[in-house]
């Protein structure tokens, strides 16, 4: 695990260095290099997140309802994290408006995933009082 982490840190440093060297001569290529580095790191992250999800599912497997709620939370968190990464990449390229739009999109996606939970809470509340 530590070796893997060191390898990923090396790749991140190398990608950042390349992007820095390219920035003066060819900023577009520098941006693409940065994006490629981020994508590589994200691909590595996905496999680890899937492993975390499996472990969390095992923790919640005792109760199917808890597992369902856990999955909903996982989706909300994923939407928020991915949109944040995209927004940061856009800001790195100097596109603040694009970054802000991406953040808004991520929030809207998370809200869309959270609203069914809110609806179920409202149903439970009305069942309690009516």
């Amino acid at each position, binding site marked *: 695990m530590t070796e893997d982490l060191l390898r990923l840190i090396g790749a991140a440093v190398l990608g950042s260095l390349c992007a820095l060297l390219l920035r003066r001569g060819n900023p577009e290529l520098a941006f693409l290099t940065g994006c490629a580095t981020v994508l590589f790191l994200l691909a590595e992250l996905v496999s680890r997140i899937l492993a975390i999800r499996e472990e969390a599912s095992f923790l919640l497997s005792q109760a199917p309802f808890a597992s369902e709620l856990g999955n909903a939370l996982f989706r909300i968190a994923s939407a928020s994290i991915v949109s944040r990464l995209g927004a940061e990449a856009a800001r790195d390229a100097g596109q603040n408006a694009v970054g802000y739009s991406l953040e808004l999109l991520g*929030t809207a996606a998370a809200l869309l995933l959270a609203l069914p*939970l809110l609806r179920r809470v409202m149903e439970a509340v009305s069942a309690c009082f009516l």
Partner: protein
Amino acid sequence: MRTGRILLVFLILMGSMSMDASALEPLSGVPFLHDAADLLFPSLKDAAGQASKLFGLALLAGIAESFLEKGKAAERVFRAGAVFSVFLLLFSDSDGFLASIRTASDDVMTVIRTALPALAGAAAISGKSASALSSEAVYLLSADVASSVIRDLLLPAAAALLILSAAAAAFQNDMLKEGEKSLHGLLTFFLRITLTVFVGYTGVVKVFGTAGDGAAKRSLRLAISSSVPVVGSIASEAADSILVMASVTRSTVGSGAVAALVAAVLSPLVRLGVYSLVFRVFSFLIAPMGGDGVSEFIRSVSEVYTLLFAMTASLLLLGILVILSVFLYVGT
């Protein structure tokens, strides 16, 4: 005095026989006193099971929240989602606790309504017809009012407090947090005032110091005031009276009515006591690991369980006071 007691047994038996069978329906299936230990372990298992389910969810929320930037919209949405998930996991199946307290309240009133006419009749026969009539009316009315306040006002308020706590933890809104604090204070105040007024109204406090073993009184008072939350001090004052009156009524059939009362509220009392304890411990355990909103909500849930436990204990106290207060007229 002996004749009075014999008549009392007879009257209670007659009252039970002539009573409409439907009046006893709420008591059917209620476990009796000797089942207390049997109730404790399943409740403990249930509470621990629910806490372990919550643990996985709270851990997931805590980890995911650490990836998100604090104060941003996405983080707020996630926090709200996490609190809603915990709320659904705890309370989606039914309003189990509130329903069980409502049933206990109905059971207490059934026992009081069944036993009180017979007891008042016995007092009347022993030559205290005016006292018996007035005491029956006063006790029945005050018990009905106090039980109605707990059942119809404080219980829905406790449910509202739970919802307000979830909203405050989900949206981190200062106004909601203030509202939650105020409602909690108001609930505690009303519970205390209901019990204080009831104890004062029935005149039980006047019985203080008339008889009884001082050491036993002190130990009972200390035990109740330290073990019953919120209303412990009021309950301990009443415990003194209960001890005095219990010594008068010992070995009489009235112990049957008291046992029925205890049996009626034992199940929700044990269940709520265990849940209150388990969630209090769990809220301390999860605080450093779970997300901010989830930890805050679980702490509020443990406080609401404590309040519900206090309400159930109040119902039991109320019933015992009424039965034993009427017995005082018979015993003397």
